[in-house]
């Protein structure tokens, strides 16, 4: 099977998964307890107003019809109107997506190089104190839930020991004009993803440094620095790239608690808000968005894995 066909096949599988996910998401919204119209109106609900809102939300249409029209709109990029706001969901989500992407990209940009360097350094000092410390440190960090790390940072830098960074985002302005609010959430996420990358980099480097061709290069008198940069590092990129991509996918879930903690106006906080407000169209759209992102990034990780694994690239006719 050619590489193109392999990727096409994975894409098709991804699309199929998203279709089933859409059934699941839609089905979940059908089962939502309570009456969405009542939740929207709250105390201002009177029978006639309820009827009006129900009709507007198509709550009385048959499920299949609702699914088809919802899925059709979804495919064409029309995510419907938020029942809470009456404004297009796309508008609501656009800014949040940008904000969340900003967090994720910054976290990845900071975590990746640091983790790669740390992993390499640790591998080069195998079984010495720095290696043990790194290993233990990453293990501890990998264990800690992200909100625990976030609250600890909050206490140290914002509300307790040092009061140098803002605890919450000023919602009156965009996040870009107040870059200081990004520091703690980005740091929290970076600390959450870097241990895995560090450990993978270390393991991969150890394997490569132990491999025959590195030994051969050393025997041939190639300087250690050159061995590292010419031979070891390039070969580590493949497997590590896959882990980096998987960590990026993890971030799609990691932002939920972190955004909630820092009151950061992103997708994660949006999901929690939508659950609270029973805003079904928004919840559906957000969950589909997260799922799509997750599937695509996992697909990318797959492809990267295939591209960088010579065995799979050439031989794999499955």
């Amino acid at each position, binding site marked *: 099977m050619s590489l193109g066909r392999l990727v096409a096949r994975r894409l098709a*599988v991804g699309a199929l*998964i*998203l279709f*089933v*996910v859409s059934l*699941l*998401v839609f089905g*979940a919204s059908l*089962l*939502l*307890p309570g009456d969405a119209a009542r939740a929207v109106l709250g105390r201002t609900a009177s029978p006639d107003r309820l009827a009006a809102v129900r009709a507007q939300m198509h709550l009385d249409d048959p499920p299949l019809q609702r699914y088809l029209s919802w899925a059709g709109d979804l495919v064409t990029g029309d995510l419907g109107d938020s029942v809470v706001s009456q404004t297009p969901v796309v508008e609501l989500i656009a800014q949040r997506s940008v904000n969340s992407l900003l967090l994720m990209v910054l976290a990845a940009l900071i975590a990746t190089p640091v983790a790669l360097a740390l992993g390499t350094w640790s591998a080069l000092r195998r*079984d010495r104190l720095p290696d*043990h410390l790194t*290993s*233990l440190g990453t*293990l*501890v960090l*990998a*264990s*800690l*839930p992200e*909100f*625990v790390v976030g*609250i*600890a940072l*909050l*206490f140290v830098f914002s*509300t*307790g020991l040092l009061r140098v960074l803002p*605890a919450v985002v000023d919602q009156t302005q965009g996040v870009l004009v107040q870059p200081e609010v990004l520091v703690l959430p980005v740091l929290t996420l970076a600390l959450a993803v870097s241990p895995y990358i560090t*450990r993978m980099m270390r393991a991969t480097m150890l394997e490569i440094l132990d491999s025959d061709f590195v030994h051969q290069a050393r025997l041939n008198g190639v300087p250690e620095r050159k061995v590292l940069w010419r031979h070891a590092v390039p070969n580590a990129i493949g497997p590590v790239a896959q882990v980096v991509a998987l960590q990026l*996918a*993890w971030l*799609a*879930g*990691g932002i*939920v*608690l972190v955004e*909630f*903690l820092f009151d950061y106006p992103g997708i994660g906080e949006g*999901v*929690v808000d939508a*659950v609270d407000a029973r805003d079904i169209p928004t*919840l559906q759209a957000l*969950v589909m968005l*997260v*799922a799509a992102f*997750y*599937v695509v990034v*996992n697909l990318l990780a797959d492809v990267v894995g295939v591209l960088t694994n010579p065995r799979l690239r050439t031989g794999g006719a499955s």
Partner: protein
Amino acid sequence: MSAAADTTASGGAQGLLRRSLAVGRTRAGLVITSLVVLVAVVGPFVAPQSETGFVGAPFSPDAPGTLFGTDTLGRDVWSRFLHGGGSVLGMSVLCTVAGVGAGLLVALVAGYSRTWVDELLMRTTDVLLAFPAIVLALLFLAVFEPQPWTVVATVAAGHAPRVARVMRAAVLDVAGRDYVRSAESMGLRRWSVRLGDLLPNVTGPLMVETGLRLTYSVALVAGLGFLGLSGLQADQADWGLMINENRLGFTVQPWAVLLPVIAIGLLTVGTNLIADGIARTSAGTDREVLG
């Protein structure tokens, strides 16, 4: 941290446990975990106050007669902390047992059938794996209302496909071995093979998975509590809920948040150290790290 090897060599699960105890990490993890478990189990009996009684004005850090001040309703933070571990711990263990159990079952069926059943089960896990665990949990909890059992079911449902993936790989690996072939040739039923030959030979990865899932369970259960979605009675002391309900007073009265945060952090680190120790032992790469 996916463990690959099995432990056919010597003594199965018990032997593995014993050997992993030789690793400093496992021991350290065990000590830390035991400490937190001790607080959770013994705490309610030694707490100076009831978990729901009022001892002062809300959010006073130095209310007379309290060690760590009062919480959002004027209850004793220290006493609520001592009362609040049981729920997180109990729910996490249940999530782990249910999630790993379900995942293992799927893996044993799928990894040893090579029919459409395998395909169906694996595609189902693909769908469930299309969400980050927390988003799946939020979607479930939006539908089924947070109750302790729905939270357990939700978190377990998040674990199951991931466990199934890892364990299926382990089962597939074992299923190709000679002794399984010979058992088949003796005409043993498939379930006898599964339980008699496959299961005992995947205990290594199974134990590692269990340890890992316990760590993630604690994080997720406490995280849902932090979002206010743990489904417990509102006045029950619970480490996750404590963080949620005392968040607003963090500046004035940090202890009400810090105590449960520290306990959750220690618990996850402890269980993960144990899991790591077992993984190293079962992978045969055990090395002393701590003293």
